């Protein structure tokens, strides 16, 4: 999706090619935890959502959440994965205070989903596991056995996670960010997660290495941990690529290690970890029986798949003739796409799509669809920011009629912007606002307009001389004068034609 701009994200790498793979953890928005019936926590007071299972008390037994399997299958289908006919859980053993059992229940050699693809990136696998508890470092406010103290909150412990691992198919930091945005939108469409990076329901690690352009062998990779925003992901990868290129230029090797990106300083530091030894001694979880994925489970997951962003981009391009950038913008911001389609339906219903009311289904003129798309992604978003337009005062049908007024030249685009200002601030029908504000376009051949043009020329004699001398750009101040006088109701081309006519020039 890079537009091939002049500055490539890989500038400064001296021809080294980045190779990037992502590991994404997604918290599922089930009602309960992965292996127990505790509700999921959203900032409740510490340790209020726990039970013997998620506290890891001896004698407690985990039971798999059926909806977590269901969501996992939906994700697998959306990512075009092969769904395992049989799946099982393993224990991943390590000691850390946020893991009360001394192991995390995860999946190993029988993950729920294997293979797959989203956009140009292949998916290696996707599996289910449980989230760890939250560990808060309280430092000097307390000491135990001479150590600083941390406090464990088990509310998050046991939250269902899907871990998605990509193949190393990304080759620049900007694409990595864009791809993660596509994944987020896809997961949001599925309704399986809140996918909020700042709140930690979407977390991303990146495996980064560089190699000489054209080389097939992979360089030594490092792992960048938990970059908690899309911007930091891009900046973290960029910083790590630069660091690796610097090392290789100096003839030094890249050491395989786990790194933490500090967005404040832009620096990367090695994570200190006493348990860096990746010796997890996986073995089958004896407390959980295997999962057989049958046809009914797959059918139930498939039945709940909505139209996904990648498919929606394609449909917007082929069905409505939108430009790629426009289609992507509307498809990736799900609420804008929904608004766009509601507005289009209104245009079609009203027969304003230049297709006539008799045609069924009404064909929307691509130019009108594009104009509507532009008004939504441009003017409307500029006024609403991140707000969902469905929650604004402007109904999709009203915006559709505004765009129709403009495309029929009943009002100018400039007047349309003023009408939209009023619609956003106070609500109301575009026709009513045009009427009360007197913003209707001045009809071609209007005597009054000719008078305003004459006054404009009078006020800008210098500009008029330049136009006569052949400088068409000098028209600006004169048109500006007319637009001010007419509150933007005059058609620019018409004004330009009148100016030339009054100066005795050919049109």
């Amino acid at each position, binding site marked *: 999706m890079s537009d091939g701009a002049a500055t490539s994200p890989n500038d400064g790498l001296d021809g080294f090619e980045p190779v990037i793979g992502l590991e994404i953890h997604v918290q599922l928005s089930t009602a309960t935890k992965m292996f127990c019936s505790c509700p999921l926590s959203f900032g409740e*007071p510490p340790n209020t959502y726990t039970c013997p299972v998620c506290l890891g008390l001896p004698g407690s037994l985990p039971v*798999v959440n059926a909806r*977590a399997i269901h969501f996992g299958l939906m994700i697998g289908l959306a990512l075009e994965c092969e769904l395992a006919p049989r799946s099982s859980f393993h224990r991943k053993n390590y000691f850390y205070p946020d893991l009360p059992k001394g192991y995390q229940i995860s999946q190993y050699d029988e993950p729920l989903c294997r293979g797959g693809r989203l956009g140009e990136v292949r998916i290696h696998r996707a599996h289910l596991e449980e989230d760890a508890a939250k560990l808060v470092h309280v430092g000097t406010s307390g000491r*135990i056995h001479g150590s600083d103290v941390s406090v464990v909150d088990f509310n998050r412990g046991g939250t269902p996670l899907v871990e998605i691992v990509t193949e190393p198919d990304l080759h620049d930091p900007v694409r990595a960010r864009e791809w993660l945005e596509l994944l987020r939108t896809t997961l949001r469409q599925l309704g399986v997660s809140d996918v909020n990076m700042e709140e930690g329901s979407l977390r991303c690690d990146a495996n980064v290495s560089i190699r000489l352009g054209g080389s097939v062998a992979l360089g030594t990779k490092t792992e960048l941990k938990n970059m908690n925003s899309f911007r930091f992901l891009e900046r973290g990868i960029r910083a790590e690529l630069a660091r690796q290129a610097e090392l290789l230029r100096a003839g030094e090797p890249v050491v395989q290690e786990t790194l933490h990106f500090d967005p404040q300083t832009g620096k990367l530091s090695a994570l200190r970890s006493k348990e860096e030894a990746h010796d997890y*001694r996986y073995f089958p979880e004896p407390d959980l029986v295997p999962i057989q994925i049958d046809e009914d489970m797959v059918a139930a997951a498939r039945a709940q798949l909505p139209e996904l962003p990648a498919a929606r981009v394609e449909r917007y391009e082929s069905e409505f003739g939108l430009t790629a950038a426009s289609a992507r913008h509307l498809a990736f911001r799900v609420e804008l796409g929904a608004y766009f389609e509601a507005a289009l339906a209104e245009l079609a219903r009203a027969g304003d799509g230049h297709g006539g009311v008799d045609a069924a289904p009404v064909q929307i003129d691509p130019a009108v669809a594009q104009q509507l798309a532009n008004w939504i992604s441009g003017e409307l978003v500029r006024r609403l920011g991140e707000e969902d337009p469905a929650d604004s005062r402007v109904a999709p049908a009203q915006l559709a009629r505004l765009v129709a007024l403009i495309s029929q030249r009943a009002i100018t685009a400039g007047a349309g912007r003023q009408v939209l200002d009023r619609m956003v601030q106070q609500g109301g029908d575009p026709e009513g606002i045009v009427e009360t504000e007197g913003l209707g376009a001045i009809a071609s051949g209007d005597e009054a307009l000719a008078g305003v043009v004459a006054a404009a020329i009078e006020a800008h004699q210098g500009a008029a001389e330049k136009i006569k001398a052949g400088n068409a750009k000098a028209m600006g101040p004169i048109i500006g004068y007319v637009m001010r006088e007419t509150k933007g109701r005059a058609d620019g081309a018409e004004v330009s034609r009148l100016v030339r006519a009054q100066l005795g020039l050919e049109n």
Partner: protein
Amino acid sequence: MIDREQVLHVAQLARLELSEDELERMAHELSGVLDHIERIGELDLDEVAPTSHVVEVENALREDKPRPPLPREVALAAAPLVLQDGFAVPSPQA
């Protein structure tokens, strides 16, 4: 034969502290266990699917329906030290 270094490594992963005598004994006993497992390899098991579970049950799933969690004072009752409504532990970053 499991050697001393391997025993130490496994003991470290399991957070076990072993005396010199225990180190010797564990090396010997673990070797015996592995020898026993190796004998299974002598059997012709081509037709037998790998077993990860001893009972023939599948899909023991639970409906996604919340149940009341423990009251916090019950959850924290066994904590050696409670701080800020949580389980206080020596910081792993220290």
